């Protein structure tokens, strides 16, 4: 064995690393797609196996993990976990329902806008977990079917989440990998997101909205809600809003202050935890902090961790370069065709498979096309295409994004059924509309 390159020699049974890494990668992704095992378990097993068979060593695996993505996700999760105890989300939902006089279509629009805006700044799953139960409470009081409202909220959460760096995990990953800031996302994606949001509501009006009606007595019941009572902790609310404002200001000034998003988010979380626990006894402090930490979505975080290692494994083994060459070959190396191909392929794939592993794979793939397409600057439209495709594609089916499944789960627990095909019939065409609009936008603005 002496004299041979250390890594080549260390792969189990002397098998070619490309074959071993590809096999492990494909098997892991297939098991993730089968949904039989918790995805965090599968990703960590796959990543661990890559190290055990010698494709990577632990140091390389640690370096492969994008800690900026994980830190940003964790920081925002902690901020939300503290903030939600204040009752802010219920307050805003009820306030917006009353603003439109408890008219059902008005409520559908308002709840969609509230969901889109919250999703732009918070994780989509958290947003729907906090807003959908309030919607169901309101529709129950109005005696109208909750399905159209929940459907609209699924779309709103995925569309709204696409608008900012922190709105959806794929954007966090893209931002981190391509060094794109909060402002870059806002300037490049927010305009088209507003258009897509508006365009999505039109078919929903003709499909459901125009037939929604509630009796005056039912509407009065909602108008009698005292939204002020929903604020359970006014002091915590003020603290949370102040910290969220500072964190977002930090993201906006990222270039000027030269601090990465993970630091901003985690520091914000630490400040909020400090404010929330100042002057409390040690038992209350540990209960509060334990609550905020344990309710972070560790499954998602560990899933990311495993995926970063897995993708680095195939990257090191050379598979990513081969795939990039293949994609460039298929599109003739044409930069416009490649961009639009990424948009459409991401959308259709993300409708059926989890967009996180897909985006994790696409990051090094797009990066490795940089030299062929003319450097980092030339890659910008590709990143926007990937973000729009991967985030909006998730609307296409009930399994396309975690938020969809969470809404369906909440609805079923409250007795409203959400069927795969019933959802698909309306959602898939509507998702395609959003991709057509993205196509036109990317084409006009960047190509």
């Amino acid at each position, binding site marked *: 064995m002496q004299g041979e390159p250390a890594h080549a020699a260390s792969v189990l049974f002397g098998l070619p690393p490309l074959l071993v890494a590809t096999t492990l990668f494909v098997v892991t992704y297939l098991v993730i797609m089968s949904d039989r095992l918790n995805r965090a378990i599968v990703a960590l097993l796959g990543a661990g196996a890559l190290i055990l068979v010698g494709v990577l060593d632990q140091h390389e695996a640690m370096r492969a993990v994008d800690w900026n993505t994980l830190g940003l996700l964790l920081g925002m999760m902690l901020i939300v976990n503290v903030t939600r105890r204040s*009752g802010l*989300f*219920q307050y805003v939902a*009820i306030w917006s329902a009353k603003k439109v006089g408890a008219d059902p279509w008005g409520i559908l629009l308002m709840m969609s806008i509230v969901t889109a805006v919250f999703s732009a700044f918070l994780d989509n799953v958290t947003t729907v*977990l*906090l*807003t*959908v*139960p*309030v*919607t*169901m*409470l309101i529709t*129950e*009081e109005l005696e109208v079917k909750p399905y159209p409202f929940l459907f609209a909220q699924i779309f709103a959460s995925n569309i709204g989440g696409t608008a900012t760096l922190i709105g959806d995990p794929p954007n966090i990953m893209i931002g981190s990998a391509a060094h794109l800031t909060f402002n870059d996302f806002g300037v490049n994606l927010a305009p088209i997101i507003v258009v897509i949001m508006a365009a999505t509501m039109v078919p929903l009006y003709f499909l459901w909205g125009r037939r929604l009606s509630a009796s005056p007595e039912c509407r009065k*019941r909602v108008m*009698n*809600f*005292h*939204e*002020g*009572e*929903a604020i*359970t902790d006014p002091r915590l609310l003020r603290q949370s809003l102040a910290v969220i404002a500072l964190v977002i200001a930090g993201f906006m000034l990222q270039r000027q202050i030269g601090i990465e998003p993970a630091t901003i988010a985690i520091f914000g979380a630490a400040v909020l935890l400090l404010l929330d626990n100042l002057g409390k006894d040690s038992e209350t402090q540990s209960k509060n902090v334990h609550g905020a930490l344990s309710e972070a979505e560790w499954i998602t975080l560990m899933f990311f961790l495993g995926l970063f290692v897995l993708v680095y494994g195939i990257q090191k083994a050379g598979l990513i370069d081969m795939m990039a060459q293949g994609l460039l070959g298929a599109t003739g190396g044409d930069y416009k065709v490649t961009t639009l191909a990424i948009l459409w392929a991401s959308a259709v794939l993300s409708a059926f498979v989890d967009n996180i592993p897909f985006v994790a794979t696409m990051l090094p793939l797009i990066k490795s096309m940089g030299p062929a397409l003319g450097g980092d600057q030339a890659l910008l439209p590709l990143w926007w295409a990937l973000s729009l495709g991967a985030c909006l594609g998730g609307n296409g089916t009930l399994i396309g994004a975690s938020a969809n499944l969470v809404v369906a789960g*909440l609805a079923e*627990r*409250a*007795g409203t059924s959400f069927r795969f095909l019933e959802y698909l019939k309306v959602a898939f065409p509507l998702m395609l509309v959003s991709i057509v609009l993205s196509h036109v936008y990317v084409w006009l603005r960047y190509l």
Partner: protein
Amino acid sequence: MTSPVIFNRNFPSLKATETVADAVRRMLDDRVSDLPVVDAAGGRLVGMFRLDRLYATLLPKAVLIGYGVPDLAFVSDTLGQLREKMREIEHLPVRDFVVRPRDVVAPDTPPLEIVLLLHQGINNIPVVDPADGKLVGMVSARDLLNALCGEGG
């Protein structure tokens, strides 16, 4: 080896076909909040009819999900509206409301285990004969107090 029993052999129960109105009357008359439901034929335990389950039907479904709506202080439904809801379910059979008992004990369950269950807040525990699944008694926090300090000891 016969120790004095803690449980009550003379307890109110419901048949699965009786209505919610029957159950409520029995609860008010006997001052209990949980009633065991038995099948008409064999006296086997079907489950429990509990007040908390009944109250759940008065609540908006969205609250029962357990997320997002932690309190209802902002809703101003009146007692009259709740009475109306109650009237809508009074004629339904208790079968529709039966829940699994949180715990079941046997006639020979040691007293300390019963103390532990009651300490954990599980009251009105059915006593089931493991041989045939028949309900033979109920044990409540009051029954234990009586066994500990009352004239039975």
